[in-house]
């Protein structure tokens, strides 16, 4: 099986599971709603406080919900020893990584749009006029996050201490994304062009390329048994 065929199979399988159970989207939505509520209580009540904290909190919300989303991508495979069978899939296991990466990104993007809408609703931020400049940031930031998250989720899925090991490994590596994406989100929310600080955009693009390639190359070693 060519690796793209394997990617296609994973996509079909995971999307079918998601459509039938809606477990991923439902849990992520509920969790992110709770987060938005907690953030609102935590940062104080004036509109300026809210506006200043919004970009960072937005990305914190993405990363915290994403942590659960990432862990799930491989935990669904633990039931009935599915992971064992995936390991035996013919062809390049990098295809499996690519499939999981795409599924993870789609799940994250859906959740992120919902969180964005909730921020707009509960924090009184007008998202419609700026959505055009926020979407590229969401896309670029998420790919890098999921590229590392998927790989680390595969590593930690088999560990006893997986709940604590995944964030321990993942969070320190997220510093560049958190800085770049929240800065760009800040620009976007202010209605400025992202190109005003193009170096952050370049950093995100570079990060995405490097870590998708590294993830693709190293994933087969993680799956080896």
């Amino acid at each position: 099986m060519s690796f793209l065929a394997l990617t296609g199979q994973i996509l079909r399988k995971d999307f079918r599971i998601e459509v039938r159970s809606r477990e991923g989207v439902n849990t992520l939505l509920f969790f992110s709603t709770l987060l938005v509520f907690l953030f609102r209580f935590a940062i104080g009540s004036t509109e300026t406080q809210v506006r200043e904290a919004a970009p960072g909190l937005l990305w914190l919300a993405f990363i915290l919900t994403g942590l659960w989303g990432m862990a799930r991508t491989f935990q669904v495979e633990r039931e009935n020893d599915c992971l064992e069978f995936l390991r035996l899939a013919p062809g390049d296991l990098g295809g499996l990584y690519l499939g999981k990466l795409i599924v993870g990104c789609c799940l994250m993007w859906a959740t992120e749009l919902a969180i964005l809408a909730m921020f707009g609703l509960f924090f009184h931020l007008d998202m419609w006029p700026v959505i055009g400049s926020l979407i590229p940031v969401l896309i670029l930031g998420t790919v890098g996050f999921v590229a590392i998250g998927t790989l680390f989720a595969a590593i930690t899925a088999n560990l006893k201490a997986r709940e604590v090991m995944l964030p321990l490994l993942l969070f320190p590596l997220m510093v560049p994304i958190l800085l770049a994406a929240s800065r760009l989100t800040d620009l976007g929310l202010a209605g400025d062009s992202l190109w005003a600080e193009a170096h952050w955009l370049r950093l995100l693009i570079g990060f995405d390329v490097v870590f998708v390639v590294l993830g693709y190359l190293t994933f087969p070693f993680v799956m080896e048994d």
Partner: protein
Amino acid sequence: MDRLARILGVGAGVLLAIGLWMGLVQAPPDAVQGDVQRIMYIHVPSILTAYLAFTVVLVASIAYLLRGSRGWDRLAHASAEVGVVFTGITLATGSIWGKPTWGVWWTWDARLTGTAVLFLIYVGYLMLRSVVDDRDRAGRYAAVVGILGFFDIIFTHMAVKWFRTLHQASTLEKGAIDPALYLPLMVNLGAFVTLYIYFLLRRVRLGTLEEAVEAEVLGG
């Protein structure tokens, strides 16, 4: 190997003594900061040695994934441990240096943040190793984290630099340092690198012995 390690150990001790004497006694105090600046003779060599250590982790990790020989894995593990120690020394001495010069023990400056992230990544690396029982699997997982962590640090350094910086420019950048301070710094750097290689050899040997004992106990 054992003899080489012993010679390196003695050499590191002697070099360190000379370097510290040069740095603390012979070199003139800094024109602006006075004696406080002398902490540089430990601070700068330790971070440079840490970078060397993590580069060795990267190379050994790639080699382990490609070749699968236990030796590469032991080298990566040993180098990461020593690297974390030197990064810890850098953070501690930096903090002590920061209090009299900047007035605070810690500030969210680019270099500090970057180094702290470096520390956290490799502490995570060591923790991952400790929670995986199977050696080969621990080695493969750790190698992946070691490779990704290294590349991530490059991005982190760019990001935190644009975020903000207060730290003085790198000591080794051209013209940043007077020749009278340069020589003691280089001697100390030599001492730290020798010390690193000594620790590395000892730690690799320890790893080899651990595995041998384990094999004997399980086998017998």
